[in-house]
């Protein structure tokens, strides 16, 4: 297990390096001059030249890259062009907000999506199942920012005053109010995923329920409740966990659009705001942070597999699939 963990972590390094090279190059190739954007169009040429020198934009690209890489390895992501604050601080400020949002969204996805899928599988092809399946497909099809806009319409115009629909209250200020301020954004983020998880749980449950060992357990007179909750669900949740894991990666990257609609200052907003003014250190810092989270979440998911289903730890060689 330890060896497997080390191997997976090791294989992440080249991927992350490649990501950093591509991110760096793409950003520099994109049109827009951060120096010009920071001093303004009418600034004298000397000021522009000074700004360029301050931002070290005159160095060759590979020099810029390697000095950035050397700093990054030491945990220093540079300073923002706009407010001269360390990028790590900027990320540190925004991260808790995004995490709070992501955790709430994940809770919604799990608490609503998995039971819906289980019910759907147990009532396969009955009316309940059909209704859940139609609702899930509908849910998957509505993009989350559309859900977000409708929530703002409902709680901002039709029924104002029930739920906050704009802005964010820090959790340090007022815990309840803070949770309330992220409730609607979390619902918007979760809505499309709930359908996906319900569908996946359903098909996975059906697959497991048709296995021989389930029939054997039934034949031996094991109670149906035990079969479903103890034997079936555990195996059926494997693919669901993969999907939830991948979604955690996305959620931690911050949903730019949902954050924009609700005015939540999370990581996603930081990414788009910094990109708009070509604040390279911030943009690439956030991009690398998201990439690291994404890669590591995938590794954790793979390892979790082994914990949940010991057969996989032994290796694929003995199993059929």
């Amino acid at each position, binding site marked *: 297990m330890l060896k497997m963990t080390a191997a997976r972590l090791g294989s992440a390094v080249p991927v992350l390096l490649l990501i950093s090279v591509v991110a760096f190059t793409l950003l520099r190739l994109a049109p827009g001059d951060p120096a010009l954007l920071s001093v303004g169009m009418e600034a004298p040429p000397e000021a522009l030249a000074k700004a360029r020198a301050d931002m070290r934009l005159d160095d060759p690209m590979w020099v810029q890259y390697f000095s950035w890489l050397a700093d990054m390895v030491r945990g220093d992501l540079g300073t923002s062009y706009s407010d001269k604050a360390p990028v790590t601080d900027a990320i540190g400020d925004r991260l808790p907000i995004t995490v709070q949002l992501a955790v709430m969204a994940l809770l919604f996805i799990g608490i609503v999506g998995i039971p819906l899928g289980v019910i759907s599988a147990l009532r396969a092809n009955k009316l309940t199942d059909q209704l859940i399946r139609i609702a899930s497909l509908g849910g998957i099809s509505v*993009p989350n920012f*559309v859900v977000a806009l409708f929530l703002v319409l409902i709680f901002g115009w039709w029924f104002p005053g029930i739920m906050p629909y704009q802005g964010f209250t820090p959790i340090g200020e007022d815990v309840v109010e803070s949770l309330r301020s992220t409730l609607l954004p979390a619902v918007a983020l979760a809505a499309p995923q709930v359908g996906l998880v319900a569908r996946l749980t359903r098909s996975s449950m059906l697959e497991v329920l048709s296995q021989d060992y389930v029939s054997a357990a039934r034949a031996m007179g094991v109670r149906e409740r035990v079969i479903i909750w103890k034997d079936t669900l555990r195996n059926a949740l494997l693919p669901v966990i993969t999907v939830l894991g991948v979604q955690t990666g996305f959620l931690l990257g911050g949903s730019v659009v949902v954050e924009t609609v609700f005015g939540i200052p999370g990581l996603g907003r930081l990414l788009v705001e910094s990109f708009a003014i070509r604040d390279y250190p911030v943009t690439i810092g956030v991009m690398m942070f998201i990439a690291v989270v994404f890669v590591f979440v995938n590794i954790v998911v793979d390892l979790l597999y082994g914990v949940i289903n010991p057969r996989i730890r032994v290796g694929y060689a003995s199993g059929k699939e």
Partner: protein
Amino acid sequence: MTTTATTEKFSVHRADEVSLLRRLAARKISMVSLIGVGVYLAIALVGPFLAPFDPAALGDDPLAAPSGTHWMGTDSAGRDVFSRFLYGSRVSILVGFLAVVFALVLGSLLGMLAGMKSGKLRDSAIMRLMDVILAFPLLVLVPVITGILGQRDLAVGPLVIGPVVLIAMAIGVVLVPVFARIARASVLAEMREDYVTAVRSFGGRSRDILLRNLLPNIAAPLVVQAAFGLAMAVSVEAAVSFLGLGVQPPGASWGTLLADARQYVTLGAWWLVVFPSIAVAVFVLVFNLLGDQLRDELDPRAKTTTRKRKTSREGASK
């Protein structure tokens, strides 16, 4: 024996294509999705000719609710939302189609090239590149690529590539890994088939094997993915344009219509939100349904119900 297997595969495949539409039409759900596809195609083709007003013409009645003259109301500049919706639908659908065509061609080619040399340097180079694309936040990648591509005036012969096509290409790039992965996985499976060995032993050139032998046999999962890809491309366009990073005003698309709507939602201008939202959501739904149905028809190995899956597993083990 191996050669007959080849011809058999081809002939079976051709027969599939001929009756595919008819077989899809025989199912109720597929019929619904086919009608949906038809409606969207019609809107994209003839919609702008039906527009009652100039979509950019400013009116003197801003933020008016839907009425007999303005079917979908007017926006903050008094423009007729229905006309803008018709023009915008064409742009959104066009971006979606172009993006998927781009991703389908490039992704399949890269995936097949990788799959033919699995485990070799070419394979890992291509697939790592795909991993890198997947690891980027999509909503930054699309505008960055659009920006990079748009720096010079690109042209194919006499056709100058406009901003709409650039956005489509950028979204296409984001979708490439999905198609590449599917193409690679399918090629890996096909390479073990006897007919490939046969063609190779006759000295068939790689390019011919790729295009003439492999492509027809791995087309099914790619076509299925194209339907899902369309749904995805259209919602990505809507999201990117919504953030102001895609289609630029005064041009209209579902995304820019929603961006215009954002500030006026809390003033109760529901008509600005509702119509483009429904258009996006129903489009995604229709193509997701179509994808599901196509998969059932074309790709029996991926069937969703357990009983069917069992039979196909027996078939695969033969």
